[in-house]
């Protein structure tokens, strides 16, 4: 490893320690984890089910480390449909041989069409079958995003494909590989990078009963809300772009576990509530689940007042 790379790793380690809430004592260990990763110790296979690729795009938004650093210094990305140079038969050879060799971390993006296997096909194979093959031979599985974690929008009420999240799918098919869920629509890049490092150096991080790393998902958005003082003073926004707590507009911060309001999105640029937008609970296991539970209470407020 060149000096420049080592120095960069240490700088990144400080940032990673901060984002994982580990404190500075863990820095040398994380640096060592990154060093081991750069030796090609962390093969990652990435499969997409019923996904929008939003979690992949979100990962590209990681700045420290950036995507090039992640690919060359952190993981060995065997296959990723959006990034791989390979295509067609060449891709299927890579996927199949990787699965045969085993020992990789599997990342799954998107839900699984358990009730309609024809609704997702990769290389002439139903994804339902492919993801089971890949999960059985993986060291651990990371379900990235709300779709892979809990089913998300494709699994919402009235959905036609019988979509489910990966943990439920693996459980019902008797696969016992450990699964970490990183919900969020999309998932925050820090949540994936931090989890990858933790898995490689310290093993599976402490998870809650839904498989989420506690270091990112232990607290409610509401408890960390920049508008919490408005809530305490009962200063509520009446409509969009008003000042005040967004609860009456439908904010789901009080029931959603994630750290968006502290971490912020796009490298600290902004977050939904700061931008006047109620939390829609995109990291929740109940995200979009019921047709009768709207994201906004605007319609409710307006009923009877319409023209």
């Amino acid at each position, binding site marked *: 490893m*060149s000096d*420049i790379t080592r120095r960069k790793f240490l700088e990144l380690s400080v940032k990673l320690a901060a984002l994982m809430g580990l404190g500075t004592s863990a820095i040398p260990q994380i640096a060592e984890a990154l060093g081991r990763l750069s030796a*090609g110790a962390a*093969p990652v296979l990435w499969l*997409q089910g*019923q996904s*929008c690729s*939003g979690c*992949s*795009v*979100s990962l*590209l*938004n990681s*700045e420290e480390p950036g*995507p*090039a650093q992640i*690919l060359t*210094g952190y993981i060995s990305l065997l*296959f990723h*449909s*959006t*990034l*791989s*140079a390979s*295509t*067609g*038969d060449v*891709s*299927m050879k890579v996927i199949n041989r*990787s699965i045969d060799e085993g020992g990789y971390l599997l990342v799954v993006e998107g839900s699984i069409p358990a009730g309609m296997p024809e*609704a*997702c*096909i*990769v290389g002439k194979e139903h994804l339902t079958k492919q993801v089971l093959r890949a999960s059985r031979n993986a060291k651990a599985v990371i379900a990235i995003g709300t779709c892979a974690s809990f089913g998300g*929008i494709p699994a*919402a009420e009235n*959905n*036609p*494909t019988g979509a489910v999240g990966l943990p439920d799918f693996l459980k019902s098919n008797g696969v016992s590989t450990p699964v970490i869920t990183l919900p969020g629509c*999309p998932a925050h890049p820090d949540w994936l990078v931090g989890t990858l490092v933790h898995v490689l150096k310290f093993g599976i991080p402490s998870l809650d009963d839904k498989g989420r790393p506690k270091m990112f998902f232990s607290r409610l958005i509401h408890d960390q809300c920049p508008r919490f003082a408005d809530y305490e003073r009962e200063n509520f926004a009446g409509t*969009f*772009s008003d000042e005040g707590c967004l609860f009456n507009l439908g904010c789901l911060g009080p029931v959603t576990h994630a750290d*968006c309001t502290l971490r912020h*999105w*796009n490298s600290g*640029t*902004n977050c*939904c509530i*700061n*931008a*006047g*937008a109620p939390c829609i609970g*995109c990291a929740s296991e109940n995200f*979009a689940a019921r*047709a*009768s539970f709207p*994201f906004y209470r605007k*319609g409710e407020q307006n009923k009877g007042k*319409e*023209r």
Partner: protein
Amino acid sequence: MSRTVTIDPITRIEGHLAIRIKIDSSRVVKAFSSGEMFRGFEVILKGRDPMDAQQITQRICGVCPVSHGTASILAQDAAYGATPPKNGRLIRNLILGANYIQSHILHFYHLAALDFVDITAITKYKGRDPVLRDLKKWVKGQISSNVIYPAAPFLPRYSGKYIQNTGLNILAIKHYLDALDMRTLAHKAGAVFGGKLPHAATLVPGGVTEKVTAVKIAAYASMISKLQTFIDKSYLTDVGEVAAAFPEYFRIGKGCGNFLAYGVFPESANNSEKLLPSGVVVGGRLRSFDAARITEDVRYSFYSSSSGLHPVQGQTVPAPHKNGAYSWLKAPRYNGTVVEVGPLARIMVAYLKGENRAVKKLVNGLLAKLGRKPKDLLSVLGRHAARAIECKVVADRCAEWVEQLVPGEPTFQDFTIPKTGRGVGLTEAPRGALGHWLEIDDHKIKRYQCVVPTTWNCSPRDDNGNPGAVEQALARTPIANSKNPIEATRVVRSFDPCIACAVH
């Protein structure tokens, strides 16, 4: 001797696409495009609160969520009679513009370029750039290691003709890395007013929830200025270099030659003027666009619903075992005709209309520089060139729009959701013309239909057996080696397909 080759999966696009080509005498004679992933957004939206639509439809696509959010709030603006204040309209344009820039840069450098650029050239690098030296060290280390796929995900790949010039390859690799930072920066600019990206939070009927402050104006302006420099100095130049190295791709991938644009980036409160105008080009002649002429056929699609419906009556009833069907995409047609949508369609319409002087000047300048005629734009390289030109036009205009924002002025106008109503949201995603059709009954969504850019471009055959735009563009493509049909993937990728969008 003819043979059939299936390329499945087509990578470096969004989503799940398979292309089947029949090759005769080293040329494609027939092509079939199959979208292979279905979620049922239009079914899921039924019975929900209409305002759910802008959030749910953004999740159709993580590459162009802002376009779906925009189509949805335009449809809702129409249904509710809401008109965003000037700040609100400008901010919508700024978020959408930032995502255009992100998407176009991502497409050229990270999705398409690896079909032209030889990544292995980095092993011959002799310069002093620390980033490139580290990359060279990594690739060499990988190749000499015992990992099963060294330098993944950049290898393995199809064998074929890549750029030969080492210096040019290395410059392109450097720009691939720069472009990673640039598309991230574009998303940051979008998040200044969008709350977050992908899946912006602030888009609502009547405007946006975010406010204008001097700090936000300065932040966005600063980011867009850096992006303008990259587009001018790297993106436009690199497209020219690829064109110079692969001139034959001005003749490959011509396609149907018909174009459709709904227009995008409103410049006035009533949406009558747009930065990139609407129009239809059939047989080289520009006509005005009429939304009533859109229909969707499903004879070869996995749906049992009626064929040939206008989206106002549109239905989505999945039938995964349907006989004769080969795609989850429907087959949209304009006046019964196959049309291409996307940056090339928008630039063609704007060029022929002649009102946008920047478009005219940039197109003429690029054609002169490359020694080409306007008809050469109907090609693989024409699509890349149009995308780069559009990226510049949008970025330059974003830099002007942000200076028109006024702190303290409203960004949102209140509205009430009616008990019944209808609305259409017509806009353009980076990949082409996008429409959402909304019908409300008893305060709930009764019908929601999306006709999406890649549905137009990658559609299967229609009820009359006419192949879709990409299927037509593949015809006559020369294939040197049927085991490595890289030429076909260059044609497909020039359309920047998004299958999550196309099927939804």
